[in-house]
């Protein structure tokens, strides 16, 4: 078990490092990289523009050597200087990470709770009208742009940027969790052993826990890893709109300015979170009967 865990962690780490390299390559090759908006500012003369271009020019070393150099510095705690904020990336991440953790974490918790409760209720009641209503609610939140949700939250007033961001993330997560959990729970509920248990008069709560939730847990938990990525992905437009000073807002500004050090670091963080959440979902998966290797 321990060996398997070490192996899994190693593969996650390698994936994270590869993710950083791919991000570096994509950013370096994208249009607008190495361009400073001040190049079109008429206040700057020839010398000024030349200096701006020199400052913004990427090193001529190549993507892989630069990336390895970056990793070497990162190993000592130096995550580089943000080209757009002119501050150490480590300081920026330290400031912004708690905000996003808070809003994404709260959003995930509320979104999962609401989605699961509704899915369980729909499965337990097994009424088409309830299914339709719950499905309609889920569809509504899926179809509303996060910008509109964010504005609605802010307009509702009194929520503050962090809570508004958490609320919007919850509304983004909830329909996905509901839809998926409903499908899994519905399939399990139609299984013969559940029908047998119901016929034998097993109490509802025991039926729910032992015969519905436990057998479906593995499949539902798989969504956890994906929903962490979805939550952090949703955090970007939501934090920008709610002006919540988190990682999402940082990532958006970094993307607009092609801030390479910041983008690599954010990719590493998100890759790590995605990898660990996926790993956690696999580890938490209850073992089931005979499994082929």
């Amino acid at each position: 078990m321990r060996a398997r865990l070490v192996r899994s962690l190693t593969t996650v780490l390698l994936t994270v490092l590869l993710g950083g390299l791919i991000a570096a390559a994509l950013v370096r090759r994208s249009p607008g990289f190495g361009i400073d908006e001040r190049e079109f500012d008429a206040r700057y003369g020839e010398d000024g523009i030349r200096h701006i271009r020199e400052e913004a020019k990427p090193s001529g070393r190549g993507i892989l050597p630069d990336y390895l150099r970056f990793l070497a510095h990162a190993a000592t705690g130096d995550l580089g200087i943000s080209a757009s904020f002119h501050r150490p990336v480590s300081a920026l991440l330290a400031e912004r990470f708690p905000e996003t953790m808070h809003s994404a974490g709260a959003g995930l918790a509320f979104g999962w709770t609401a989605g699961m409760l509704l899915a369980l209720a729909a499965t337990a009641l097994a009424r088409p009208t309830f299914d339709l209503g719950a499905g309609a609610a889920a569809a509504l939140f899926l179809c509303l742009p996060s910008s509109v949700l964010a504005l609605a939250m802010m307009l509702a007033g009194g929520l503050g940027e962090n809570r508004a961001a958490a609320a919007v993330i919850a509304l983004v997560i909830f329909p996905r969790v509901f839809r998926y959990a409903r499908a899994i729970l519905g399939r399990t509920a139609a299984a013969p052993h559940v029908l047998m248990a119901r016929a034998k008069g097993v109490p509802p709560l025991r039926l729910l826990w032992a015969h519905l939730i436990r057998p479906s847990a593995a499949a539902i938990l798989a969504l956890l890893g994906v929903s962490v990525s979805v939550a952090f992905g949703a955090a970007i437009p939501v934090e920008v709109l709610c002006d919540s000073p988190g990682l999402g807002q940082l990532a958006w500004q970094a993307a607009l300015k092609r801030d390479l050090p910041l983008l690599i670091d954010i990719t590493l963080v998100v890759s790590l979170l995605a990898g660990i959440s996926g790993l956690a979902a696999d580890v938490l998966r209850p073992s089931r009967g005979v499994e082929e290797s």
Partner: protein
Amino acid sequence: MKPLRRAAIILLAAIYLAALSAGWIAPAGYARQFRESPGVRPSAMFLLGTDELGRDSFARLLYGSRVSLTLAPAAAALATLVGAVAGVGAGYWGGWIDTCLARVMDLFLSVPWLFLLLTVRAALPLNVRPLESIGITFLLLGLLGWAGPARVLRAAARDMKSEDFMIQARARGCGPLRLLRFHLLPNLAPVLAAQFWTSVPLFILSEANLGFLGLGVAEPLPSWGNLLAGLQNMDAVSSCPWRLAPLVLLLVVMACFHLIVPMEDFSK
């Protein structure tokens, strides 16, 4: 076929037909600007009023449906299909195949593919037609968006391969491909449907978000994404509730997909 499902099919077909027939239904077109009538209320001439430039909102909704109703479900289907192949394959075969594919999924979920979209857009000629440009964007979104569905399908497949019916089928001598085709995939259909269903609005809305980076639909072509983005002006929406029409239509289409795409009847 259940009556509700039949009705959903008819309604969806009617919407698609209306979108395809936009040229006859709204002959003024989506681009023509009636500059003396900007922002007018619905009337006989303008069924949903006009926008800020005097363009017929009903025509723009119909023409926008063509873009969004064709490209978004296609991108969602592509993402779900690729996700199914990767996820089910990883979950079913396990071992090093599963490990490798799981890590590839993690990569696809975390790398900023946005920059690939920007690079591809920059490589296209400037005078490319708006429909071609947005078509390429949706194709890329579909090819890049497979990791989410793949992850959940992987877990579902892993879970299902040790079910009794699978063990029985293997014991009876079913080969791997037959097991996949006749036993695993049909039972994964609800999960596949759920993934497809949640992906369609996601792709429609992502087109609007990508518009901020110049990757959305170019003027004057409308899309549901850029029509829905107009809902941000809440004052305008509250005073002109017909501006909610794109949202209502999207909800109707989503409901139709929900009823049409094969799923288990949970009411049994």
